[in-house]
């Protein structure tokens, strides 16, 4: 019975370790260093509508689909 609890407990301990670690790692790229990243050149997807059309063509003409979603970094400000 206790053996079954071993993995979830280990998982929770690992999570706790990760949490404390996260707070002590400083973000290494400061907001004022994000000038290059704010440019349209550094966006995975600049034009949502055009990319949607292009993805639609690939979906129809090819047998695979998915994972084309783009997450933006947004403005390099925050």
């Amino acid at each position, binding site marked *: 019975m206790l053996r079954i609890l071993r993995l979830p407990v280990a998982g929770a301990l690992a999570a706790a370790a990760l949490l404390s670690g996260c707070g002590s790692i400083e973000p290494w*790229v400061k907001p004022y260093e994000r000038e*290059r990243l704010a440019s349209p050149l550094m966006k995975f997807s600049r034009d949502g509508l055009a990319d949607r059309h292009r993805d639609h*063509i690939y979906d*129809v003409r*090819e047998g*695979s689909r998915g*994972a084309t*979603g783009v997450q*933006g970094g*947004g403005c390099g400000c925050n």
Partner: protein
Amino acid sequence: MAATERWLKAGAWQRLLRSLTRLWRARPHRLVRRGSVHATRVAGGVLGGLMAGGAAHAVDLPEDRADAMIHVYDGGGVRASGPALLVRKKLNDSISLNGTYYVDMVSNASIDVVTTASPYKETRNEFSLGADYVYQDALITLGTTRSREPDYISNTTNLDVSEEVFGGLTTVSLGFSRGSDQVGKKDIGFFDIATHWKYRAGVTQILTPRWLMSANAEAISDAGFLGSPYRVARVFGAAVAERNPRTRSSRAIKISSLYDISDVVGSGARHSARAEYRYFWDNWAIKAHTLELGYNRYFGDAWLAEGFFRYYKQSAALFYSDNAQTETTYVSRNRQLSAFNSIGLGGKVAYTVKQVPGKYEIKLNGSYQYMRFKFSDFTDVRTGSLYAFNANVLQLFVSATF
């Protein structure tokens, strides 16, 4: 922990997500249904996390934007073109609404149509409405899309949550879509349905002030009528209606990298290079690789140009056959499910017509892509050799951000 306790602890967002999943009355395969409950739990966990986070700064809503586009696809005897419009407007600092209208006027004389039927013309209209809501570091997007054709109606709803963590260096996102289609055939009307569930997760990480990387994964499940009522398969040389499985489960993972190479090139202008790879696999035994390389460059302040190359290769579905020599439960001659590769080479150009910083910006954009599809196991019955075709994709649009 009792189910009720978990329910109460989860919080308002998770309750909302659970109600949404209950509202959808269709009865999916039991494994898929469990998956959607798990998805809501994870989303609820993320949302619960963001509620707990006390960060004072907020992520930005997408900019106000209006796009008007003309798109053309011309390849393999199919010509699909039409206008598309997008409007996005912020209501206040936390909510933004957007609407899209997309039209596909299709003139179809593809090899399947020409060899088994006669060319036809048809128009598809698609409307989308969406809302974005910002809460502290998270962006919640809710949207719905309705697509209408004379013989196919599709409704999709999606929910995406994206959160900036770790000082804004990492953006984590989760998304869920559910699509419900009505499948029809000319002269018969609507006779069947198809439902789709998509679960996606992604991470975008700023690695250095010059380097951005992103990883995305998506699992898609389909149930219902998944083929085309017009397409025929070939068994022992004779044409029979195709028989597709009534379920499909697929996974895709994609890794992308974007690097600012201005310092490397050193010409004073701004350059960036992009590389993306996606691997796809599903329970129809299709495996596909997609590789895309892109290069962006600014010419002066007003011109932004991009060149890209795309290579795609897929293996055939288990039940695909150009000319089946055995009787199988499922059989299909859908070339989209066969083993083939495609190469794409294209360019995009954006010209900033007028820019008032902080106020508005108007751009003229154009893009052209040449694609070549080569099939390894699909014969052109008119010539007897393996089929291959070229396609041209053209987009012309005006975009205004304000």
